[in-house]
């Protein structure tokens, strides 16, 4: 019997699924008592080098409202050539192509090791990928130059047949026509054109789109419908002069990018440059919407500052009014916040409907309005990259990595994903949290209780990467008085249709099953099947999802209550005796995750700008479990002469003078040299031949850091600091403040470094937790 650890690992490797519980309680009541919902993290396009896609259509259940895909869990009558759907129990004949099927000649999808299988299907003409650059020109020359180079470089990374377009903006928006010979043409729009106040109404949006298309000359006169129906893609392709194959316009575009000038309009003293990001994006979205709906496309926004005019404006152009802070937002002082957010949300939804994703590359020292714009990426599966300048390796390498290729030499991006979930009768799906939008597909397996984006069994994920991970929440709907037969299994099927970067249409089907367990009799088994890492991430996603709409303290209180309830449920203790409290191994780390989660920037806004919070949250809700865990509880490695590098507690006690620490918070990579080490380094011992070992010690964390830097997307901020260095704050703010200026007993002790904070330490947190868990009144 394998341990749960192994089981979980194996399942994750094969299916990209991590469930909070690996045994499912068999009734609704019991499920709710488990506190952590039945849920899973699902990575739809988890890289499976060992999984060759099959070149045929999946076999679907013939029941109209089921349409589940044939999978290893189905019962098959090889003689009758009939299979029974494991979700609806419909008996289906195999299609003619399966005539040769037998027990020894099974198609791949029936084999247990192919619980995840990928089909390549023929659906319509292949459409090229589209990359639409939306470039801010209100940049410093140095920044613009770096950006120009990055963009020019990126042209060589694009697939040659990909369509590429360029929109530049500043005070005005220019849509560049790429095909023309001779004169370089562009269409110019002003950035202040306000839509009607009812702009959110769909009709008006359509009208705007129609208007825009007419302005761009995309509509053939007489062809347009009353609301400007988009042209059929091939028509559009012919008439669209703004999106052209890279191979055709490579030179032209390189020149165009090379001639890209800073926004020429003078910026008076005390003003911000006028930046029409809102309209630029709406034009980009409208352009794609009109020409290539439902085609894989990335709108890539490169901006060097906040939108300062027109719809979607985040801050006025007066420098004396600073951009909103959390303080302003709490005081309801952020003038443009609501309007801008609403504007970008509408825009994001339009893009999502058409399957286009929007990336935001924001490089500026100050905030750039990510808070308002985040939904553009959050809803469309786009990237958000935040840096200080386009002239940093952080941006340059991150951007390069967008176009990185996998083991097959194909881009690690997929488009237009639609995830559909089918469940056994006892389960219903409550919702999803991740870079997706609901497709509002009501089916029999849709729960009425929403968690995250619910009310549907289909979600659109406009852009997917191999690490894109959704949190999916389920509800056990089986009533307590309708017991499931022993050995019964609940099953979930994930059907992900998407456009592969090589233009193929693919369907990946993952079918998982877990045993049902009676919570009353088998609670220990259920406890043992608890995947605390997955649970922590799943709960964290719920928390972050709530934090978007609720006040911070409320979310924390909710998280605390869940934790206390979980401890009450599974902890072993004597009533009112905190010291007797024990948690089993499968839950032992969970409180610690919660402790760090409470302190994380995903839930704490102190010390973070609204933009940073949005940035952190964005990445938190789309990364896979490992990365998410690093975000919740950063990893700390210690390097010393006393032994090989070792992970150490994320605790102030780990900060010792003779250690080098490497902390990975996902977003930052901090190398911290302890006091002694740093003195040695200053004395340049590493340059002396006799201290070669010291040199090696110094080098070790650098090498490890390099390894992380190589693979991480987005590139983390790399920080090399030392004891007393100002940048050491990145480390100090993360570690558990077990020693502070308050607990005096620690003073003078050699171990660790006191942190000047009033935050509670893990110890205090745990003490309280125990007290509350065991309290009879709680």
């Amino acid at each position, binding site marked *: 019997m394998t341990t749960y650890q192994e089981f979980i690992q194996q399942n994750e490797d094969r299916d990209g699924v991590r469930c909070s519980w690996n045994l499912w309680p068999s009734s609704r009541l019991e499920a709710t008592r488990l506190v952590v919902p039945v849920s899973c993290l699902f990575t739809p396009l988890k890289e499976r080098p060992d999984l060759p896609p099959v070149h045929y259509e999946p076999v679907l259940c013939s029941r109209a409202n089921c349409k589940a895909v044939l999978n290893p869990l189905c019962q098959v009558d090889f003689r009758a050539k009939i299979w029974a759907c494991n979700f609806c129990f419909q008996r289906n004949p195999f299609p003619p192509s399966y005539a040769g099927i037998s027990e020894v000649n099974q198609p791949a999808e029936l084999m247990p090791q192919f619980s995840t299988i990928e089909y390549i299907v023929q659906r319509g003409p292949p459409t090229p990928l589209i990359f639409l650059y939306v470039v801010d020109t209100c940049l410093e020359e140095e920044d613009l130059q770096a950006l120009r180079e990055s963009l020019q470089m990126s042209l060589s990374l694009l697939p040659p047949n990909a369509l590429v377009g360029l929109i530049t903006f500043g005070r005005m928006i*220019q849509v560049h026509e790429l095909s023309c010979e001779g*004169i370089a*043409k562009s269409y110019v729009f*002003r950035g202040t054109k306000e839509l009607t106040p009812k702009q959110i109404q769909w009709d008006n949006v359509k009208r705007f789109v129609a208007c825009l298309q007419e*302005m761009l000359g995309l509509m053939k006169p007489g062809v347009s419908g009353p609301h400007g129906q988009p042209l059929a893609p091939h028509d559009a392709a012919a008439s669209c002069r703004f999106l052209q194959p890279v191979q055709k316009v490579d030179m032209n575009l390189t020149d165009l990018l090379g001639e890209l000038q800073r926004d*020429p309009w003078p910026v008076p003293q005390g003003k911000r440059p006028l930046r029409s990001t809102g309209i630029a994006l709406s034009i980009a979205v409208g352009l794609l919407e009109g020409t290539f709906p439902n085609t894989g496309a990335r709108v890539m926004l490169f901006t060097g500052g906040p939108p300062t005019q027109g719809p979607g404006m985040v801050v006025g152009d007066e420098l004396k009014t600073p951009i909103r802070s959390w303080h302003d937002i709490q005081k309801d002082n952020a003038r443009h916040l609501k309007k801008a957010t609403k504007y970008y949300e509408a825009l994001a939804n339009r893009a999502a409907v058409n399957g286009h994703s929007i990336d935001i590359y924001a490089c500026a020292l100050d905030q750039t309005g990510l808070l308002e714009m985040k939904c553009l990426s959050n809803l469309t599966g786009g990237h958000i990259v935040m840096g200080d300048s386009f002239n940093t390796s952080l941006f340059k390498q991150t951007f390069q990595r967008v176009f990185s290729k996998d083991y097959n030499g194909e881009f690690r991006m997929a488009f237009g994903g639609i995830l559909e979930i089918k469940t056994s009768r006892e389960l219903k799906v409550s919702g999803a949290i991740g870079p997706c939008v609901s497709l509002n597909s009501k089916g029999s397996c849709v729960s009425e209780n929403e968690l995250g984006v619910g009310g549907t069994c289909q979600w659109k994920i406009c852009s997917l990467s191999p690490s894109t991970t959704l949190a999916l929440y389920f509800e056990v709907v089986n009533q307590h008085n309708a017991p499931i037969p022993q050995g019964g299994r609940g099953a979930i099927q994930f059907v992900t249709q998407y456009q592969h970067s090589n233009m193929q249409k693919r369907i990946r089907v993952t079918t998982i099953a877990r045993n049902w367990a009676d919570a009353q009799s088998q609670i220990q088994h259920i406890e043992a099947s608890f995947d605390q890492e997955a649970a922590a991430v799943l709960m964290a996603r719920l928390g972050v999802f709530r934090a978007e709409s609720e006040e911070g303290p409320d979310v924390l209180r909710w998280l605390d209550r869940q934790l206390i309830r979980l401890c009450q449920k599974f902890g072993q203790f004597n009533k009112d005796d905190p010291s007797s409290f024990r948690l089993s191994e499968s839950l032992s780390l969970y409180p610690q995750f919660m402790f760090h989660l409470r302190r994380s920037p995903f839930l704490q806004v102190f010390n973070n700008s609204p933009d940073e919070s949005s940035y952190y949250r964005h990445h938190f809700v789309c990364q896979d479990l490992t990365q998410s865990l690093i975000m919740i509880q950063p990893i700390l490695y210690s390097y010393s002469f006393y032994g090989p590098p070792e992970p150490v507690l994320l605790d102030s006690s780990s900060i010792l003078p003779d250690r080098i620490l490497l902390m990975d918070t996902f977003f930052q990579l901090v190398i911290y040299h302890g006091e002694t080490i740093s003195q040695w380094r200053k004395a340049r011992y590493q340059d002396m031949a006799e201290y070669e070992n010291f040199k090696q010690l110094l080098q070790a964390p650098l090498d490890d850091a390099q390894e992380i830097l190589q693979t991480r997307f987005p590139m983390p901020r790399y920080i090399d600091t030392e004891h007393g260095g100002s940048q050491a704050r990145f480390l100090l703010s993360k570690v558990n403040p077990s020693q502070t200026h308050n607990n005096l007993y620690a003073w003078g002790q050699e171990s660790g470094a006191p942190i000047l904070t009033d935050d509670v330490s893990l110890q205090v947190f745990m003490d309280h937790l125990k007290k509350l868990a065991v309290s009879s009144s709680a």
Partner: protein
Amino acid sequence: MSQQGYVATPPYSQAQPGMGGYPTGFGAPPPQSHYGHYGAPAQPFAPQAAGMLKTAASGPSGMPPSPVSVQHGSSIQQNGAHPQKYPPLPADSAPAMSPYGQPPQRPYHSMPQATPPTQQITNQMSAMNIGGYAPNPIQSPQSPTSSAAPQPFQMSPPTPMGHAALSPQGPQLPPLSACPPMAASPPVGVPPMVMPNCQPGSPLMGGGGFQPQAGPQGFPQQPGSYGGQVPGSQMAGPPAGAFPGAFPGGAAQMAGPPQKKLDPDSIPSTTQVIEDDQVKRGGQLYTTNLRGQVPPFVTTSFSVQDQGNASPRFMRCTTYSFPCTSDLAKQCQVPLATIIKPLASVPKNETPLYIVNHGEAGPIRCNRCKAYMCPFMLFIDGGRRYQCGFCNCVNEVPVQYFQHLDHMGRRLDMYERPELSLGSYEFTATLDYCKNNKPPNPPAYIFMIDVSYNNIKSGLVKLICDELKTLLDQLPKEEGAEGSAIKVGFVTYNKILHFYNVKSALAQPQMMVVSDVAEMFVPLLDGFLVNFEESRAVINNLLEQIPDMFSDTNESETVFAPVIQAGVEALKAAECSGKLFIFHSSLPMAEAPGKLKNRDDRKLVNTEKEKTLFQAQRGIYEQLTKECVNQGCCVDLFLFPNQYVDLATMADVPAHTGGSVYKYSNFQVQVDGQHFLSDLRQDVKKSIGFDAMMRVRTSTGFRATDFYGAIYMNNTTDVEMAAVDCEKAVTVEFKHDDTLSEDVGALIQCALLYTSISGQRRLRVHNLSLACSSQLSDLYKSCETDALINFFAKSAYHAMLAQPVKVVREILVKQTAHMLACYRKNCASPSAASQLILPDAMKVFPVYMNSLLKTPALVGSAELSTDDRAFHRLSVMAMGVEESQVLFYPRLIPVHSMDVASEAVPSAVRCSEERLSDTGAFLLENGQCIFLWLGQACPPDIIQNFFNVPSLAHLGTDMSSLPELDNGHSKKLHSIICAISQQRSSSTKMVIVKQKDRSEMLFRQHLVEDKGLYGGASYMDFLCYVHREIRQLLT
């Protein structure tokens, strides 16, 4: 001023030699006195106090009885007394002038000779006498003055000579000139009527009278141009009854027997008057040192020496002697106005304007009225203070400006400082005179080309682009500057706009399309407006590509207001002033602000609502005008319409921003291409000032009240002009506030603040001093018909926006009659009511007025296109006197009989069909077109010489140019045409018309003495009508 004046008051004449201007300016105006007796019969003797001589001359005229003898007497006496007053006249002038006799000779020969013809006429018509120019004395003294004034002292010696020469000639004159035709008619003596005309100076009356019947006959046939209530019967009836001698109305006007027919030669002839003035004053140096002197006609070639008053090229007044009181002004109804062409070009032989720099302190100005330092400022108190000539305020002289006075009370540096000695000069303006206290940037020219289907198809776009490549090398530049500072920019448009980035650094021009026409904006800043020199390669590249880029367009809708908006925004962004050249084809019907619809409803013609046809659509265009003016953005519109384009609205912005409108209906490159190109060239090259503000200040007692021109007025005093070029004139009307003093006269200072083509802020100041008189006769004497008609045209064209056209016409006729009646009543010597007496200076006024009434704008005919009417109306609004004169009385030059050997342009003949002959060829020019009219029976050799084809039949119908052939006739013809076009500020279109051809209609419209094609009286009929009106007024 007459010489009598000098004689009577020697001190002044002494002052003259020193420098003309000064003494006159401040001196008491004695001259008035001797005019007085004509003007005011009531006090005939009051002025006589001045001296015996004058009394003798003038007194009698005021006295009713025994005119004949007295007049004779007076004339003799006058002659005797002041023989030297009459300047010598060139011998050849005499014959030409005879009908209206020039002052000098008259006394001798006109008496005996002129009388009989006049009598004959009077008899013949037996009802009414025209042409009795009562104030002959006026003319006589005056004309000598003007010619003599420049060199008062040199005059005396030649005078006797002149006399001697003239006397013998005298007798021959009548037969030579006007008399012969008259002689044909049976003489009927009506001596009393004639005699008054024959007063000493009266020669002019030669015009002679004619019978009123002629008028009435013609009148009923006029299609009601004078309004319905003037029924033919009334015309024909009462006069016929009143004058027994009237011939029966039944006879056809033209067909009638010669005796009964009024001889057209007998009525005042404009060509004659023009020629007389040319003879008398042509080629002379006109020195502006005297107050209130009347300059030569605009048609006369003369040069000007500025000696304290602005050249008539800059300012020309309707009268140079203002009435002293508003009552008098009201009584005579002669408009007091001046036509200011502030940037008029100065001929090469005249000194260009001096530029005065007063340093950082800026120009010196009166503290109270802000008038600029000028010759009218009187320095007192040893030069420490000066009294403003306009408001009389006494100001301290700034320390740095102090200068001692000489014994005459003049500053010692008077002749070193243009602002103290000249009528016109410029100041360099300081930052206080600049927008936002920032020195202006050099202006920009933006070429905005409509590239819709029509313009592409017609080949216009290519034509423009090709032309611009060379034309841009000739942008106007500051005198002496290396290259032009003007920047250029390019826009093309149909229903969207395309801007071009032509920065010199670019290898290729870049096109930026703006399709958001609802809220126009300029998509680029850097690279849109560039120096042509620097960006030549890119611009030529662009101009090369534009025609191709749109060659397959099928977009026929256009926008218009957004185009102007774009231009203004571009200038705003570049913080400069400038000019938009818009080449537009069609009614802007595309969905955009300023969208226009066809509102051409000819049913409105001759109704109360006719005025709406000429009113611009309100709204966006009004707003644009304001923006343009604020930014100093002038709009020049080149229209190439194939149908109605609502010109009234489209031209609204140009008409208020100092712009010009050109219209080429049904444009064809082969036919109209050259004309358009020469218009474009002139328009681009002409000198111009931007962002201008004009202020007209006057001395106390009167003020400027109304302004007409391509201007914008935000308040009642500041004339704002986005730009003003060398052709734009502003007509300013003055009204009395108070009484004017004869001593001080009326002073006018026009100050124009503008940005020069190199981007310098300048102040141009024109000063003019006019005489004032309490005698109406002085006023009539110094009237300027050409200026008057300019004023009337502009005020009528202005009024027609507010009143029905019919009413405007009536008012014009009424005022004409009133002015003449007032003269008759107050200034002319008594005569029979039937006699039409015109003031000498206004004797051709009726023909101009009649011509004005027949212009497309005023004629009220549904046959004329509304756009053409609006176009005509607008084109007149900014005209100077020169242009309006020739427009209202075109020149008709016979070219079939020209003397190939001579250099001179053959003399013009009267603008009437009667002057044409089947066997002749004529040129007609009105400043806008040159017609070459070829008679049906035109001898083949002429045709051969002109066109190199054997006969008229071989000529194509749509010829627009004359071949240049190597023969005397052709060369001569070309030299004439060349001479004509050089005189004109705008280019003229060449049209070749064959008699009886379809195109002859167009030509005939310009024969202004004839009955109008679309209604309107013939000259003669009009005179009759006016005469009747006058008589009604007098009774």
